[in-house]
């Protein structure tokens, strides 16, 4: 897979080595009440993710992946521990502050794309601008151009292929220039050809300095990441394996 240039790879490695952590978890737990007591969806998780790092989160169903994605995406807050994102202690935030923070710091890429069916590709991208600050059509067009879809800007999601829809989703995630891209099974709904296109775009984004946290079941996609964080029964197992070299092979 020849996805990034040597210069880009070196740039990414350099950033990783000297980077301050953009995500820090220290003894983070998320407990849900249940009829039989409590469920420890995430138990005492501690790890960091550096700026410009590409991390894959893996684990079987019920391992706590969704809970971790919710916490990293600021859709939920931990019941215990410290969660720091981009230097801000997220676990102390709530309500509107958390919404604002999420809009600023996290770009979501979904398995099922989740494009608004009655808005065009361009408008779907502008929707993220609208909830962040103000819409800007030329920026939105540039984001679509970045994923190679400027010619499909006026098309409705139903007129786009799965791969194209996922690229619109990536453009939407990028439009507000968030420091973290949170990809939840980004290729889970795509055929091989489109998987490759999306993987290339993610690799390019990583090479350009984006921090990517990717939940995946796909070993090939996981292998593209620099590091795996495996989850089992709410417990975290970190594998400090750098795959940057593999990307260029």
């Amino acid at each position, binding site marked *: 897979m020849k996805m990034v240039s040597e210069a880009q790879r070196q740039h990414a490695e350099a950033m990783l080595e000297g980077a301050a952590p953009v995500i820090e978890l220290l003894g983070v737990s998320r407990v849900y009440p249940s009829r039989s007591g409590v469920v420890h969806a995430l138990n005492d998780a501690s790890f960091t993710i550096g700026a410009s790092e590409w991390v894959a989160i893996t684990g079987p169903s019920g391992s706590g992946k969704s809970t971790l994605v919710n916490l990293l995406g600021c859709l939920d807050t931990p019941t215990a521990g410290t969660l720091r994102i981009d230097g801000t202690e997220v676990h102390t935030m709530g309500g509107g502050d958390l919404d604002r923070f999420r809009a600023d710091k996290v770009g979501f890429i979904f398995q099922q794309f989740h494009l608004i069916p009655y808005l065009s590709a361009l408008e779907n991208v502008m*929707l993220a601008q609208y909830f962040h600050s103000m*819409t800007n059509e030329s920026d939105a067009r540039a984001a679509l151009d970045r994923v190679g879809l400027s010619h499909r800007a006026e098309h409705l999601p139903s007129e786009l292929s799965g791969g194209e829809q996922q690229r619109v989703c990536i453009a939407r995630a990028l439009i507000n220039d968030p420091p973290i891209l949170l990809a939840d099974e980004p290729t889970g709904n795509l055929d091989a050809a489109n998987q490759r296109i999306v993987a290339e775009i993610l690799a390019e984004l990583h090479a350009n300095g984006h921090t990517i946290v990717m939940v995946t079941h796909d070993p090939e996609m996981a292998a593209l990441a620099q590091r795996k964080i495996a989850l089992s029964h709410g417990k975290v197992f970190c594998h400090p394996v750098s795959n940057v070299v593999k990307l260029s092979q």
Partner: protein
Amino acid sequence: MFLRMLGESFVRQRRRKLLAGLAILLGTTAVTAMLALATTIGDRIHRELAVYGANITVYPKADTLDVKIGGQTLRPTTGGVYLHASDLEKLHGIFWANNITGLSPELDSSISLGKLDSVPPSPVPAAGFWFQHNFGDAKVKLITGATQLHPWWKLQGSAPQGSGQIVLGATLAKSLKVGIGDRLMVLGVSDVADPVTVTGILTTGDATEAKAIFELSTLQQYADLPDAVSRVDVSARTKPEDAFARKDPDTLSPKQRDLWYCRPYANSIAYQIREAIPGAAAEQVRQVEQSEGTILERISGLMWLVSAAAMLAAAVAVSAAMATAVLERRTEIGLMRSLGASKVRIASLFYSEAGLLALLGGIVGYGIGSLLAALLTARIFGEQSGITLRVAMAHAFNPALLPVVLGIALLVAIAGSTASIRSALRMDPSAVLRNNA
């Protein structure tokens, strides 16, 4: 972007929106019809009940022992205390002057009456009234008199127009064996004989049937009681009597007294009449007033009940429709949340949609409700009350009701949507986005 999303999402899920809109439309139709009826029904019922006579009676204060049995005054007709007819003009100056819809002053006296050939004429009781009297002023036109205030009277022939004309009570006409067109001799207190023509025979069902009826000023002349009036019957548009209406204004605090004074209770209008006419006592005629109050209270209660039931049903229907609509769009809500939209911002989108639906349903409901109110008014009160469909339409389409109806429609739409919107916003966006393709 907001308007684009609002517009696009408004035209989607047409069946659900149609159902919710229809519920709002039916609810506002019922409320508009009820409100339009309620605003006009008081006036209509007052007019209907006016057939039972005046609702306020005014008499001289020093004459409080005026005993009437079967309409016959038992106090002596001479030496009594009288009101001044000219003082009645002062009623134009009272706070609720415009609510006075009819006025009938009456002078009770006696004259001697006989056929031209009978010697001497025998004394008979007499009464003087206004007939078709212009009591209006520069602002209000009001033609009033005894026949308006006593709609059950049956006058054969025509009312007396002035001196030289007389109407006989049916009993008196029978005893004198005279009919319309016959000429009679009248002797007043001056003992000057005046020939008069019988212009009508009056059937009243009470003691008035035994009287000789004159135009008020004519009898004042015969009785030598210029400007005198024994009593005045007043018909006024009033607010139904309630506990506050029965309070004595002189025992109330100044603020409460002002409030009492400025409400069109029969009692407060009577109070203002007492203030305006020197030496007058004025009281509400309880039977008519209480009937009016009871009827209006019951009708008003029924209308509120129907309106509340209609709006409750609309709110339940809106709630059901919105619950399904919001549930179908939970992925969209989850996406907006993940993009950083605050709950308030998402809620405002759904509330705006519900509001738009409420406005559309409310406007159409207002139109249909007003039409329904017009049809009901024309049907209930009928043309015998002078309420043609055109008149009813003019009254029913009340622009002041539109904002009220739209406000109620908005409240219902918002109340009906709140539960679904709140539950949608409580959903875990991540779970929703993961589970929905």
